[in-house]
């Protein structure tokens, strides 16, 4: 792109806020009652993380992979792509994340989420619960129709934020690898929401901040202790 410095964030927003929010309304109407099992599966994730044994962790990873696969196809490719030609590429990103979670977590068993202790663990759980329980309320709280609720496992934003919460409570290299796509999405959607003057832009941006700052702070703390 030539003269890229002359472009602002608003130049990349190719739809109106009304059209964007209406997508969720129509989406929810079309997939009802999928919201109920999606919420139930979301609620099961932290419970599975508390169970001992590799099988629970593998099942958790499988559910989480499904939570990324559905919005990839059902929302980003089938619906968002109708108003944003980049939708298909975002869908591909979500599909890759689903695959990575399935391979690293469910197949290889290299993803260990929890326990939810310590600052990172507790913050991660809080972030996940905010994505699962609070995010669906944002449509109504913001004065839009309740039918436009964004739900974890069905809509991309709460899925990415909730996943970052879970990964904040996870250890190891796999968690860092799996954080990349949710982080990028939170930045992308944060920028779009910012341009639309939607205050909920604070949530994906806060998730980015937490996932970057907390592990770094933990690292510094440990380094100071051992010095």
């Amino acid at each position, binding site marked *: 792109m030539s003269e890229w410095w002359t472009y602002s964030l608003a130049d990349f927003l190719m*739809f109106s806020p009304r*059209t964007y929010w209406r997508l969720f309304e129509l989406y929810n109407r079309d997939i009802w009652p999928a919201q109920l099992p999606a919420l139930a599966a979301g609620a099961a994730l932290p419970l599975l993380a508390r169970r001992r044994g590799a099988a629970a962790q593998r099942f958790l990873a499988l559910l989480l992979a499904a939570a990324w696969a559905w919005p990839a196809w059902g929302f980003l490719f089938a*619906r968002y792509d*109708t*108003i944003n*030609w980049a939708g298909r590429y975002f869908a591909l990103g979500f599909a890759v994340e689903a695959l990575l979670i399935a391979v690293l977590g469910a197949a290889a068993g290299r993803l260990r989420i929890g326990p939810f202790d310590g600052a990172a663990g507790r913050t991660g759980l809080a972030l996940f619960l905010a994505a699962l329980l609070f995010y669906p309320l944002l449509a109504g709280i913001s004065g839009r129709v309740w039918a436009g609720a964004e739900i974890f496992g069905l809509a991309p934003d709460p899925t990415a934020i909730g996943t970052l919460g879970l990964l904040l409570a996870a250890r190891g290299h796999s968690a860092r690898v799996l954080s990349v796509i949710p982080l990028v999405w939170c930045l992308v959607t944060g920028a779009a929401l910012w341009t639309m003057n939607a205050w909920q832009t604070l949530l994906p941006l806060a998730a980015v901040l937490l996932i970057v700052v907390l592990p770094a702070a933990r690292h510094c703390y440990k380094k100071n202790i051992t010095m």
Partner: protein
Amino acid sequence: MSVVSRRAALRTLAAGGVAAAWPMAALAAPLARPIPSTGEMIPAIGLGSWITFNVGDDPPARAACAEVMRAFFAGGGRMIDSSPMYGSSQSVIGEGLARIGRAGDVFATDKVWVSGAGRGPAQIERSRELWGVDRFDLMQVHNLLSWEGHLATLFEMKAAGRLRHVGITTSEGRRHDEIERVMRSHPIDFVQITYNVLDREVERRILPLAQERGIAVIVNRPFREGALLREIGARALPAFAAEIGAASWAQFVLKFILAHPAVTCAIPATTRVDHVRENLAAAAGPLPSAALRRRMADHVQAL
């Protein structure tokens, strides 16, 4: 309708504060301007589709866009402009034209926007199918992307009778040097640029060059995607706006643009029927003189 009776109608509207119900009766045939390369007359107010017609698969929203197009044609409009970059806008236009039975009346204006000249023809054909027209009246190279190759394709299509006019576009003052070079070196029919009461860079070189070379000028983003009207909309119109029959800031801004002798048409985008009528009405009355245009620009600049 005479200027006097039109003013009376505008006064009535202003007094009632009923811009939302801009009546068709207040509209005379909008000003038409010739396309310099062919002499064909084209109404000076067209219809843009960036953001406003990108409503996805939402049936009520698509139907609302069709109603905007219906009002546009009923008020004498013809040129509708779109691009493959505009999401679902092309399919919304095509569906709307079919719904209101105006595919034969539209001055179909689109763009080719793809890297690599080899991919241009397929994209243009896909756009044509979405519009549901036999051929485009104007095809432009969007933001000069791969312009050398695409222009060759467009001139070939024009020579073969599969396209009526060829153009190039830019927006918000970008790549004016290159635009100028293309205008000097290629026999294009149209150039599309951003111009309004605040963004006046094109007055220095592009607009005079268009006049000199006989190139029609389409003005995009006349309201800075609505930001200009949001910024100044709450202020009272200056008294001298009445001299040119501008009953709203939208008309004030459009009249400023259309009064430039190089401008062929402006393409404001809207989702509202009353706004499309209001925009068309801006081209149906008197336009400001050069002196008044300077005053208009100074006034807005000072706000």
